[in-house]
């Protein structure tokens, strides 16, 4: 079978599924069956695509409607796109099962409306479309699809808190979309094309100053979406208020779509224009500022949102190095971060159900009450903090080695800068560990009766968030599928360590494709660019 048939399906299936689930609005069971099977099908397709692409060494390209590039729309699946498709399909499927079982147990209190499934599937379609877009404008459409769906999911139920958080998120996203669209307009004006492969050739022919302006405008748009400092202020204010599964999928995936777009921008589109120094500085600042924010948070959802921002810095650092090893480590880190961040947010959802709160000041005694929950939180926490032998450690080590190797030849900016960012990365990793183990100590290890009037130097610096107020409710039972899904995701994060060898090799082959833009160009234009 020709694998090219499969490529459009990863976008088409979720879109059709969204239409079907919208029609089935009143039949929840049918809705669940449709959306779960659609996402499972996409996961299988992505796995097949990844296997084909990796085995053949070439990508799969589809010219939509048979129109030749650059006039038609190209859908490109190379190794990077296939990896991203597979991991996001798995995470989306897992979170869907989690959300459904939570909805069934709560009689749909968190997701009371029939539009949850259609919106979720449209979000998936947007994410997949962004990954396979071979055209800058198609990438924009993918972003808009996923953003529109995310607006709906974030303001689900329309409570006051969510509307307030949603307004910030929506306005920031709108502004970034306007930047992106303006960038596309100017790039089209300068080069006469929006096809990424053709842009790679034509942009290199432009004067340096024009290249730099276009490059920075595009990075600005993607930087807001990826939540890179100083464009990350919106994230901790908007993500924590959404329902737990929605926060998990946003945190895991949406910022990574921005990171993916930045990888493409740096490697293929602007191969000549070099902003490595800027990316290194921004990467270092994102790590430090993000994690210092996390230190002062008493609410675990907000704390995790700040660590999310902070760890985007590692990926920006890897992209800024612009070496093959740096990119390989970045790709491995992206996969690690998607799974571990989603697992942490899902576990937080379980903690909220079980302990009745997400505040460090109110939770206590969970270790005795639920040892499984303690393990489910502890493993991803150590993983994110970069404790050997977990994948977080391997990813960070890969990045640091790439930085240290690149530093003497000052590949990405001056050597002292690279070393400074490596130091910042090591510090960030330790502070992450501190922030998460502090939460673990308080929530799991502390006795129940110690909560009243508890005074500890560990807690002196944390801020209560108004949103976390008196949310304490009676302990609710946790449905088995929620625990199973969370356990499965935690297991995947551990498997990333077990299979680190083959995975890092795959990431290495992907990075080798990326550092040489002619690979990508050759995929879309087998006969060379006219």
């Amino acid at each position, binding site marked *: 079978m020709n694998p090219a048939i499969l490529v459009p399906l990863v976008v088409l299936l979720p879109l059709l599924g969204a239409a079907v689930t919208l029609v089935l609005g009143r039949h929840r069971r049918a809705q669940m069956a449709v959306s779960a099977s659609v996402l499972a099908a996409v996961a299988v397709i992505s796995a097949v695509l990844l296997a084909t692409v990796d085995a053949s060494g070439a990508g799969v390209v589809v010219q939509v409607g048979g129109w030749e590039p650059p006039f038609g729309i190209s859908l490109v699946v190379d190794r990077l796109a296939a990896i991203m498709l597979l991991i996001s399909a798995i995470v989306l499927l897992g979170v869907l099962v989690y959300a459904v079982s939570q909805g069934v147990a709560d009689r749909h209190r968190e997701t009371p409306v029939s539009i949850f499934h259609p919106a979720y599937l449209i979000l998936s379609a947007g994410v997949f479309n962004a990954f396979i877009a071979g055209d800058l404008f198609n990438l924009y459409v993918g972003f808009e699809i996923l953003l529109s769906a995310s607006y709906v999911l974030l303001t689900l139920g329309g409570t*006051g808190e969510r*509307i*307030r958080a949603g307004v910030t998120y*929506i*306005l920031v996203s709108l502004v970034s979309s306007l930047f992106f*669209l303006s960038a596309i*307009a100017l790039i*089209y004006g300068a080069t006469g094309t*929006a096809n990424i492969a053709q842009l790679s050739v034509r942009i290199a022919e432009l004067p340096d100053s024009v290249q730099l302006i276009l490059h920075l405008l595009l990075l600005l748009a993607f930087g807001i979406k990826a939540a890179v400092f100083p464009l990350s202020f919106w994230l901790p204010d908007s993500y924590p208020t959404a329902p737990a599964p929605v926060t998990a999928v946003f945190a895991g995936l949406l910022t990574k779509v921005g990171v993916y777009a930045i990888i493409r921008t740096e490697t293929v589109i602007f191969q000549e224009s070099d902003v490595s120094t800027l990316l290194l500085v921004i990467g270092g600042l994102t790590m430090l500022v993000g994690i210092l924010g996390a230190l002062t948070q008493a609410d675990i959802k907000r704390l995790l949102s700040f660590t999310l921002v902070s760890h985007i810095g590692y990926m920006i650092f890897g992209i800024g190095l612009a070496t093959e090893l740096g990119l390989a480590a970045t790709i491995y880190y992206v996969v690690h971060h998607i799974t571990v961040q989603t697992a942490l947010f899902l576990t937080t959802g379980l903690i909220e159900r079980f302990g009745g709160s997400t505040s460090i000041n109110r939770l206590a005694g969970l270790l005795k009450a639920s040892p499984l929950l303690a393990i489910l939180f502890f493993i991803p926490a150590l993983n994110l903090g970069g404790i050997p032998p977990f994948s977080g450690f391997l990813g960070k080590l890969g990045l640091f080695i790439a930085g240290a190797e690149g530093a003497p030849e000052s590949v990405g900016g001056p050597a002292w800068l690279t070393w400074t960012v490596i130091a910042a990365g090591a510090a960030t990793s330790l502070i992450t560990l501190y922030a998460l183990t502090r939460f673990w100590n308080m929530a799991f290890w502390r006795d129940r009766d110690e909560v009243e009037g508890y005074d500890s130097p560990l807690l002196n610096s944390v801020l209560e968030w108004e949103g976390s107020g008196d949310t304490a409710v009676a302990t609710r039972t946790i449905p088995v599928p929620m625990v199973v899904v969370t356990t499965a995701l935690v297991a995947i994060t551990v498997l990333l360590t077990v299979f680190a060898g083959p995975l890092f090799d795959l990431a290495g082959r992907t990075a080798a494709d990326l550092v040489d833009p002619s690979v990508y160009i050759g995929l879309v234009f087998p006969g060379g660019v006219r």
Partner: protein
Amino acid sequence: MTASLTLVVLMAVLFGAGITIMLERSLTRVLIGFLLVGNAVNILIFLMSGAPGLAPLLSDDVTADDISDPVPQAFVLTAIVINLGITAFMLALIYRSWWLARLGEKGDLVDDEDDLEEEVEEAEGLIRSSAADDLAIQELIDASDEEFEQSPERPDEEVRP
């Protein structure tokens, strides 16, 4: 590449006005600002198609140099559709936040599917009073128009009836 000066000026004005309005506190104004900036970007895309020409249909007596570039037009059409969808969503969001602002905490409890009669009645009462609000606002505007003609001072009255 040639560009029409009128379009450039129009784009600049739309950008300026739109960004100014987007910085206001009121959500409705922010939405209007977004619409203006969105249209400014659309005109920017349109400008990038270069000099105007014939409709992009190739035939025997039309060469590729005579026609307009159709690709930016396709971009603009797509962007307009996306803006339309976002605007619809924003309007719903603004209505919801207005509703919540009027009802406070209670607003979270009243929804379309609510079957508690009292709350529905209460909600209907509010809808009626919102119609009364519109009337009162209209009266105020009329009154301020008249006053404005006489003296530039604004009335300090509350908008609510």
